């Protein structure tokens, strides 16, 4: 009894430290496991965060609209010209699309997976956090499960890592834990795109012999089974062949502007098509 009283503080500290260390060790061995308490916390926090973000977004929109009125006419003219250019570009792509379709038919190639999409609003996007994740307002009730790819019209956003009943957490491509098998569109050089913090990502394991230059588009390779082939990941920002090392040092600017994410699409694989003989 005397011993316990003497070392009471030490004993309490020991119990707390061991318990918290046990929690950490358990989850380090089983990363990605979403417990009941985590789900409850996400469900509880998301409406509040959504409310605060909506209020700030509303204020920002009012200010933005006021500012946009300045110089609207010249911007309108520029945009019309841009639309005309893009229309031409779409026409040429459409031609290519039909051509590819015909060639696929000839070669008996078929898409093996068909995806349906679920649109979701971004509830929380903490930009300053070290861990680059966002929370979206769709969960297991809408068919969202861990591992599904998340995209916008600009390109790949990331993949679902945790899903609760009504909300899910998306691991952005800029997070350090994100690794995606990628291809450089022109040269077909292959590598692994790893998140590298707030702005840039790193394309790892690109052979020194591969031709990679700034401005090249990076797309998903389809390997790994999570992301469909050919979705835009970003653009090569720098490519450097250092004096030593087997691989090039390549930095990539993500296609998606993560600071302005409002809505995303979650791709859900629907069914595998039978291969035609």
């Amino acid at each position, binding site marked *: 009894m005397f011993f316990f009283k003497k070392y009471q503080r030490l004993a309490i500290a020991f119990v707390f430290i061991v318990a918290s260390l046990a*929690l*950490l060790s358990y*989850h*380090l061995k089983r990363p990605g496991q979403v417990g009941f308490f985590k789900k409850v*916390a996400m469900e509880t926090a998301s409406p509040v*965060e959504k409310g605060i973000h909506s209020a700030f977004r509303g204020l920002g929109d009012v200010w933005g609209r006021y500012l946009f009125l300045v110089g609207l006419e010249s911007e309108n003219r520029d945009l019309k010209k841009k639309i005309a250019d893009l229309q031409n570009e779409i026409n040429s792509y459409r031609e290519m699309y039909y051509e590819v379709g015909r060639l696929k038919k000839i070669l008996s190639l078929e898409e093996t997976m068909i995806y349906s999409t679920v649109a979701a609003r971004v509830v929380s996007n*903490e*930009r300053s956090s*070290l861990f680059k994740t966002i929370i979206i307002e769709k969960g297991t009730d809408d068919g969202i499960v861990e591992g599904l790819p998340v995209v916008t019209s600009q390109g790949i956003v990331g993949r679902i890592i945790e899903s609760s009943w009504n909300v899910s957490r998306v691991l952005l491509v800029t997070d350090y834990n994100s690794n995606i098998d990628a291809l450089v569109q022109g040269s077909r050089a292959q590598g692994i795109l790893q998140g590298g913090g707030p702005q840039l990502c790193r394309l790892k394991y690109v052979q020194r012999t591969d031709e990679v230059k700034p401005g090249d588009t990076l797309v998903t390779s389809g390997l790994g089974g999570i992301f469909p082939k050919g979705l835009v990941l970003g653009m090569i920002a720098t490519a450097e062949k250092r004096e030593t090392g087997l691989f090039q040092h390549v930095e990539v600017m993500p296609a998606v502007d993560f600071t302005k994410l409002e809505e995303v699409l979650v791709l859900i694989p629907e069914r595998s098509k039978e291969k035609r003989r």
Partner: protein
Amino acid sequence: MIFYLLTLLLAFSVIILQRTFVDLLFAGKISLELSLMLVIFAGFNFEEVRGGIFAALTGFVFDCLSGAVMGLYTFFYVIVFFLTRLLTNRIYSEQMFFIMIFTFLCVLLEGLYIVVLYKSVFDVNMSYNLYRVFLPQALVAGVLSPALFAGLNYLEVLFHAGDRRSTESL
């Protein structure tokens, strides 16, 4: 029981505040971890059991909401709380300069802990963040900590005064 419920509510509110309002206030450039500052304050003012539970709960809620591996912040907050207790028992900790330096060092220590853990467990090199993310964060937290602690002290006095009044009326 009320203490633990209030603790949970406070932890939740502070973490949501730092994830939304503070993030928007600093335009996403600097992360200000109010929850860590609260744990340091608890280290200066709470006794071991209550403070330990407060630190563990705050860390747990932050783990749930931050997207980090579960237990990352729970473990660190518990360590910071007992480290603060250890210092409080040995030195005079009411000085503004001491609070600033201590908060600054705790935030840097957190950065080092995350960088080392991610490197050793996941083989992810986050060392770049030490001076890019954690140093500015530590500086801001250090500068703001005396004001925050003064505010929390004021709230604590108000809370206890309310407590005393309700006891006297009984």
